């Protein structure tokens, strides 16, 4: 039986899970936003990683067939998108119930009108989101239930009269957290079959000739699917049943991140995020000697040796200004989503000078700058630069960038942060320093955890402690498209 290992990184902002096999290859990833309940966040991330692992296994099984029948790849991707939508839909149904109950409970004036508007929002955004899922239009936003719903809900509510806006937003705030904190489990097989059924409809409804303005479609593949998906459907069903029946047995797991102490894991299965991030980053980029991780509430500058073992580290103390939460706060100040911050900052003409010692002070500075007419993009660029300046100071304190440098953590996905990190590392440590940023940067801690879980079997478990540790330099991890 195949062995699988799970790493869970319970961060202050997001919770991540990674499943690897006994060759340290990533099979599944799961991510959710961490709200009040770490336990649910961990469960959701883990479940998502398991579903993801099943899809990966399915792809692996179909490896040869996919090569000969490219239609299969597109079909599988579509199934996956619908699969995600169906999970979303279940939660959405729960949210709708909560919202109706909340409006009933809280809105005393104009209740009938508010109920009417709530229904209008729900009947509008539901199909819109469905379309986005099915058309793969959510981009990087399709990770968190809250973000997907709140963006559209707020947009519609804001356009309504203030008398309705406030009770509608109050109802949303009261309803979203209990829904997020509720664990919903799904049956993989049932959900995949349901996805296939839904796709039947989609493919049937596809126009024979797409309209010119529908630029997002892969015309040839879709048309190919429209006519041919039935050819692969039957054999796929067999594989799906096989994969669904397969027991993804987690042989060992390691928890890390801020919420790790809350995980019901034995002591040996709880590891510091410093070690996990370093181990994960080193596994992907073996020549890494310095790791910078900017997370939600802390920034870590880590030095590692040739085995991926931490030799020293430095973390921000006393204040979390300059970490991911700083960006979250700024996004709230501007009333835009986190994903929009980086791209807008990249449009700046120059960087406005902003103090980064205190998040709250920075908020006050932002308002002042907006009042005097400074462009939003310039302010955002200044804020991004300020964060990186703080990270650079921490890097210097930890001993600087010694060799190959890897940037991990959720903030590494922000293109503006990335730009300033690249600039400043090159300025301070020379242009020859090789810099690694991976598309999976946010999963590095969970990956390191999963890798420790695999090694713990051999080294850390009490009964195995006397055995020899594996040679760390043989670690090889294959992950898609390092950029």
């Amino acid at each position: 039986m195949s062995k699988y290992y799970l790493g869970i990184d319970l961060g202050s902002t997001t919770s991540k899970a990674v499943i690897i096999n006994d060759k340290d290859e990533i099979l599944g990833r799961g991510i959710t936003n961490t709200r009040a309940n770490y336990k649910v966040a961990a469960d959701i991330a883990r479940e998502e990683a398991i579903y993801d692992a099943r899809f990966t296994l399915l792809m692996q099984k179909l490896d040869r067939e996919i090569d000969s029948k490219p239609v299969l790849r597109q079909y599988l991707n579509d199934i996956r998108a619908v699969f995600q939508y169906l999970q979303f839909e279940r939660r959405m149904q729960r949210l709708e119930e909560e919202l109706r109950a909340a409006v009933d409970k809280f809105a005393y004036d104009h209740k009938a009108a508010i109920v009417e508007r709530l229904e209008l929002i729900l009947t509008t955004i539901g199909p819109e989101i469905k379309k986005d899922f099915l058309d793969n239009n959510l981009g990087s936003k399709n990770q968190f239930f809250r973000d997907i719903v709140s963006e559209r809900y707020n947009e519609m509510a804001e356009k309504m009269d203030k008398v309705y806006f406030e009770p509608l937003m109050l109802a949303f705030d009261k309803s979203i957290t209990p829904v997020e904190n509720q664990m919903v489990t799904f049956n993989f097989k049932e959900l995949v079959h349901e996805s296939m059924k839904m796709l039947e409809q989609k493919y049937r409804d596809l126009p024979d000739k797409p309209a010119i303005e529908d630029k997002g479609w892969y015309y040839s593949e879709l048309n190919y699917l429209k006519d041919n998906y039935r050819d692969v459907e039957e054999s796929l069903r067999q594989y799906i049943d096989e994969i669904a029946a397969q027991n993804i047995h987690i042989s060992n797991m390691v928890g890390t991140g801020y919420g790790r102490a809350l995980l019901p894991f034995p002591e040996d299965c709880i590891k510091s995020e410093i070690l996990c991030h370093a181990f994960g980053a080193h596994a992907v980029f073996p020549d890494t000697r310095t790791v910078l991780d900017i997370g939600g509430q802390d920034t870590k500058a880590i030095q590692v040796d040739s085995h991926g073992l931490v030799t020293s580290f430095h973390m921000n103390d006393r204040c979390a200004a300059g970490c991911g939460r700083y960006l979250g706060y700024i996004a709230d100040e501007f009333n835009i989503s986190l994903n929009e911050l980086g791209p807008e900052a990249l449009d700046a003409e120059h960087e406005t000078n902003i103090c980064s010692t205190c998040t709250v002070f920075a908020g006050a500075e932002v308002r002042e700058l907006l009042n005097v007419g400074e462009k939003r993009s310039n302010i955002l660029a200044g804020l991004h630069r300020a964060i990186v300046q703080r990270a650079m100071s921490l890097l210097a304190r930890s001993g600087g960038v010694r060799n190959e440098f890897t940037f991990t953590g959720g903030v590494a996905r922000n293109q503006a942060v990335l730009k300033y990190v690249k600039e400043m590392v090159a300025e301070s440590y020379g242009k020859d320093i090789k810099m690694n940023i991976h598309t999976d940067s946010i999963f590095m801690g969970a990956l390191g955890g999963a890798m420790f879980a695999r090694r713990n079997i051999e080294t850390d478990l009490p009964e195995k402690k006397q055995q020899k540790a594996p040679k760390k330099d043989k670690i090889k991890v294959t992950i898609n498209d390092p950029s």
Partner: protein
Amino acid sequence: MTTDVKKERSMTIQKEMVAGLFKDLANVQTTGKKVCYTFIPGNLSELIRTFDMLPVYPEINALQSAMRKKSASYIREAEKHAHSEDVCTYVKCDVGMMLNGNIGPTGEKIPEPDILLLSYTGCFTFMKWFETLKRNYPNAEVVMIHTPYQENGTITDEMRDYMTRQLREEVIPKMEKVSGIPFDEKKLKKHLEHAKEAEDWITKIFDSTKHRPSPIDAYFAGVYYIGPINIGFRGTPEAVEYYKELYKEIRERIDNGLGPITPEGEMAEEKYRLVVEGPPNWTNFREFWKIFYDMGAVIVASSYTKVGGVYDMGFRHDPQRPLESLAEYCMNCYTNLNLPQRIDLLGKCIEEYQADGYLTNSIKSCNSFSAGQLGMMRELEDRLEIPVGFIESDLVDPRYFSYSNIKNRLESFFQMLKQRKINYQSTAAEAI
């Protein structure tokens, strides 16, 4: 870890010594003894005793207040009196205590100073501290002597002469004036003999961490061990007696293969041996210590236990050269050593006591210790390839002790040590 916490005889002796000192201080109005306020680094205990005066150490009062959870209100009081948030918290705690009636750790009032003696100027804050005290105690005499910094890593004849001249021309005449007792060199020599003997014993005590398991914790318990020698008993037969007894108890622990005593009993398993740089946090001292012993970490050497005197590099008070050796003592204070000297000293500790890791506790409000700490850490890391860690807290201001952040960093630090130990063991096994 056992729950049986046995009171060692040395603990009882120390308690009696400290209680006796505070009782003597409380009774000065009837005994007529004069009171000398001074600081631990460069303290001239033997000279103070020669003039039959009683010492008061403001920084000891501050740390005792912190351990009794009184420092927060004292600091608030001092801040109300215009002391900035960034001022050394020992100072603010002391000022706050003074403003609240100057009640000492035993609940008795600490008398006002007859003389303020500053015998170590390496800490600029000390000077400002005494300037503040002078304003509050206008009748106290003030004597400040300048201690040359060991910039070049040596004590030259000129530096020694400069110091002895200050002792002869400034300190001794002022002490004679305040105490009304003429200087008696024979008496000083006697005290120095006792000092030398106590220093021999304390060196042996701190050297006992060479053993595995280490019989003592040289930081958390070490701060108790240095109590008598630092708070005015150096130069007395009582101190010699205390250290002899303590050493005897430690010897017994070594013979029985026992680890250090913690507030929760004996430490069962020694997993990590550390050298720690920087003062401890006093407001959450027990909690702070517990993080270490719960993880099986013992501190085998610390720079903080050397603030009142560095004896492990061979320095001893010398009855044959009384003023010269007092001068050398002041200049040999840990924070009066230049950074390469401190690095050498800590490096020697790491090697001799076979430390697995080096940890810096950086104190928000202590410039004397903080300056150069990062550089020293990097140098030791490079030179000895030792894993290093860095945490931040404060002396006596509870607002700067964040338990969860410190625990989080220390957990990472200990896991880093564990990981490296496993790796080195496996590498060594492969080599065989």
